[in-house]
């Protein structure tokens, strides 16, 4: 265990409410509660293993810049820290091609509510040894433990990466004919597609589409709809929206603006179960108090 991790565990301690913050780009810690920050910095990168180890406070953009030198990247949304991206667990609009954030974390060393360093997962790209605690930590918003040091799966940077757009009054036509696009977005009037890979393949895939600078601006809030219902969003929302085709995340200015029948919410029994998990991991509720799971 690194000394930084030990010091972090000592700082979290075993008693009293405590919260954690990185760069506070995703909301920061719980106000009015003693705040700690995780270790920062790259520990190692093994390009031929496609793995990287870093402190949870390492900025995502700094990590990406380092990996880019070896032609690799990590499928975390940009901005903020690695720990913040994992703890919040929200995937970016690249999810269609990159997969969700939760598939990125291979091993985590976190500080538990008892102030102990606990290891979840393993350092290799493939591992089914024991229960998958890593997946539970991603999106747990620091309610089960505070991420200290993580091993992440890296991926190769594509040779070519280009955005295309076209007018479209339904979302699925372009989506259906592309082979594994990285992102397909629809705002009710136009479709945008991010196509990556070998330059000649990108050129052929993009036939009939117009090249553009990038995606449309994303409204601030998001809701989840069933992917099959993305086409119905246009008639069910007042105001601007950008929908991730093939995924079902809808970005809009006000989440309440989407008709309730399209919005999907979690099974209440799952919420109860999540609270049982929280009670097992943090019986006194000292970690990020007030954050619901």
């Amino acid at each position, binding site marked *: 265990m690194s000394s930084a991790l030990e010091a972090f565990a000592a700082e979290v301690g075993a008693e009293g409410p405590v919260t954690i913050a990185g760069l506070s780009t995703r909301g920061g810690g719980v106000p009015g509660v003693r705040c700690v920050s995780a270790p920062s910095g790259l520990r190692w990168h*093994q*390009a*031929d*293993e*496609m793995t990287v180890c870093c402190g949870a406070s390492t900025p995502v953009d700094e990590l990406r810049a380092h990996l880019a030198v070896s032609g*690799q990247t990590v499928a975390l949304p940009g901005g903020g820290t690695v720990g913040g991206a994992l703890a919040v667990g*929200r995937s970016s609009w690249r999810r269609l091609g990159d997969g*969700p*954030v939760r*598939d990125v974390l291979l091993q985590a060393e976190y500080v*538990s509510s*008892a102030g102990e360093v*606990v290891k*979840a997962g*393993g*350092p*290799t*790209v*493939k*591992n*089914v*040894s*024991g*229960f*998958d*605690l890593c*997946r*539970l930590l*991603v*999106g747990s918003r620091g309610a089960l433990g505070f991420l200290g040091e993580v091993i992440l799966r890296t991926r*190769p*940077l594509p*040779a070519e990466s280009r955005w295309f757009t076209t007018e479209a009054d339904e979302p699925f036509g372009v989506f259906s004919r592309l*082979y*594994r696009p990285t992102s397909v977005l629809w705002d009710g009037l136009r479709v945008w597609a991010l196509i990556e890979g*070998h*330059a000649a*393949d990108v050129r*052929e895939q993009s036939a009939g589409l117009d090249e553009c600078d990038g995606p449309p601006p994303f409204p601030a809030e998001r809701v*989840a*709809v*069933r*992917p*099959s219902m993305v086409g119905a969003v246009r008639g069910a929302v007042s105001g601007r929206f950008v929908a991730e085709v*093939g*995924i*079902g995340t809808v970005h809009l200015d006000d989440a309440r603006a989407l008709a309730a029948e399209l919005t*999907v919410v*979690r*099974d209440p*029994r*799952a*919420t109860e*179960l*999540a609270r*049982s*998990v*929280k009670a*097992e991991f943090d019986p006194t509720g000292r970690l990020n108090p007030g954050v*619901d799971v």
Partner: protein
Amino acid sequence: MSGAHEVLIGDLRAVVSADRVRAGETELGLYRRDASNLDGEPAVVVFPLSTEEVRQCVLAAVRHGVPFVARGSGTGLAGGAVPLDGAVVITLTKMDRVLSVDPVNRLAWVEPGVLNLDLTRQVAVHGLHFAPDPSSQQSCSIGGNVANNSGGPHCLADGVTAAHVIAAEVVLSDGSVVMLGDDAPLDDGLDLRGAFVGSEGMFGIATKVCVRLTQNPPAVRTMLMDFMSVDAGARTVSDIIAAGMVPAALEMMDKLCVQAVEGYIHAGLPLDAAAVLLVEVAGLPHGLESDVERIVTIGRGHGARTVRIAQDEAERALLWKGRKTAFGAIARIKPNYYLHDTVVPRRVLPQVLQQIYEIVDRHDLLVLNVFHAGDGNLHPLLVFDKREPGIMERVHAAGEEIVRASVAAGGVLSGEHGIGLEKRDFMPLMFGPADLAAQAAMRRAFDPFGLANPWKVLPSPAACGDVQHVPEGAWV
């Protein structure tokens, strides 16, 4: 048959029709074990047809304080479905319907008893497939894939089962039915779906699963390269990955394995090679041709003697047949085998393979290696004749040393078979007491009764919440 046992069977027959509650000697004998070498002791075997019947079976077992074990096709290799302690075996094989397919968004809802390859066959008409492809894919079930977070050769590029399951309806041990995850992208809140995948039947029983389907690649190239040293083959693997390529599959066979396979399928494999690499690249044509060229250059740079690129689908099928029939081919050498499953960092593959050869020599055994080199997932196959006195002790001793050597080299206990009973007591090699306590806490949250497939995965005392008592003879 004890009185309590008869009451249990009576209760089960009250909720599932009598012909689907079996307690005869023959049936119990069939369900004592899975595809591992481990044996258990079921009390009764039930075959529910619906979520409600599964729920009622679970409630009956829990009411009697008897463990329950969910089971699919029984192809698991780590003893995960071996029923201990007079458990109720809940067999999901009759829940085998594909409930819906959304070919546009590439999703399907299936029951747990659907066979892996059957799903792929059913969605082939849409140009789609289910990506996890374990060697047992003709007979293993989706429910079993979820329980074990199964892999397969093509998981190198596409990921193991967890990456392809987006929701599961699960019956918990308190009889409640919960939807974990959703086909809509509910990012907020704990990923209980992710926690459930790979929980080896110890969190509950999946009764419906929503899987992500994968587009069939427009083009595929399959090639075989052979090397005069294992080291050269392994370095080729590392350099391919380091060059930024992720082939669809990257498999290796060692000399003894190639000899066994060639004697079986006559594909023209080089009998004197120390290692043979099977590389498959898939995708759009230009990227694919560029990758083939770069891979061949890397292979030749490491002394690849011959490079054979499949010229048509028939030749591709033949090359894959060599890989996929390896387990059958070993019957030509010895009648029995013990298949191991560990993962090591790719860069230490040559050293760990060398250690495996030394371990096996020391125990006077034979080993064939056929494995997923691309992700460092070793599958040493110890072959033996179990009629030979004392042989099982040697097989197990060698197996344990292989597991220890893999973990010591920075690897992990299992890449795709799971822990089950087989590797339960090796868990402390990877995890300390606090790590194991956290995994036990996950289980308690899902199954506070400790009756869902107890005594697997977690060594005691981490499993102290589970019902006590492991029967004599449960261990090999």
